[in-house]
């Protein structure tokens, strides 16, 4: 049985690195057997490519209890989070990632992912620098979802 890493989308595999696609087995969860650093990297690539291509597609990365703090504003629940992200005042954007750090978060099997990078908005001359923290939690199906999400622009 092919398990889905982060969401049931059929286009998932196109977002994952070729190396990850080679790591498959018929038993257990691919996410569970993956090296944590590789998992974090795969998640980050999937998250930002989805964000940049179709923000509404982020919905199944969050659940009802998920929390987002976006530039100080607190939002809870997948629906509200996606409503916030799709209503941001720009049509097109491109994230480029500079650093990804991850650590296991505790006995529940969660993972903290700490990202820094640049956000280029269409029509803007300079890219915005940002930091973002994700706390990923495992699902019973062997996938992961975003439980905590904190985003901050880093102003000069």
């Amino acid at each position, binding site marked *: 049985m092919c398990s889905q890493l982060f969401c049931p989308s059929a286009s998932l595999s196109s977002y994952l690195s070729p190396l990850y696609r080679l790591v498959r087995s018929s038993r257990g969860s691919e996410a569970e057997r993956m090296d944590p650093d590789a998992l974090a990297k795969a998640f980050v690539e999937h998250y930002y490519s989805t964000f940049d291509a179709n923000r509404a597609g982020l919905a199944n990365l969050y659940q009802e209890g998920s929390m987002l703090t976006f530039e100080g504003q607190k939002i809870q629940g997948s629906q509200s989070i996606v409503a916030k992200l799709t209503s941001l005042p720009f049509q097109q954007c491109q994230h480029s990632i500079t650093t990804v750090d991850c650590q296991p*978060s505790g006995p529940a099997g969660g993972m*903290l992912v700490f990202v820094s990078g640049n956000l280029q908005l269409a029509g803007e001359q300079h890219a915005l620098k940002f930091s973002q923290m994700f706390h990923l939690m495992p699902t019973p199906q062997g996938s992961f979802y975003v*439980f905590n999400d904190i985003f901050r622009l880093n102003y000069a």
Partner: protein
Amino acid sequence: MEEQVELVGRAFVDHYYHLFDKDRASLSSLYQPTSMLTFEGQRVVGAHAIAEKLSQLPFDQCQHLISTVDSQPSSAAGIVVLVSGSLRLPGEEHLLRFSQVTSLSFPSHIFISVDEPSVELFDLLLQMFHLVPSPGGSFFVQNDMFRLNYG
């Protein structure tokens, strides 16, 4: 509940950077054997190794200036905090910008509830500032990740 979490996060951050800037060696008291620090990509595990890493940083004095602190409950007994700010080093003309993620774990009997601020929360804040002795299993820093934000 939100205000409680932000209050604890802010109190922790003030305490953490105060210790860092004034008495770096005493930071080891905030970590436990299972704590992890990733400092500019280098991963270190355990209070002893973390304290050693921080004491070996190539500066004797520093001052952290905090710009933003965002906190969220990460579980029934934990808080995650994202901090951004600047780091002033003596002799350096320009401030270094940084971001840092920390997760705090609390004893399981202290949980952040949605009701009014609890006695346990107040005690916890007092413990953070070492104003009262902490019982076995006080809060500690479980995860710590630090990155400079280059221009």
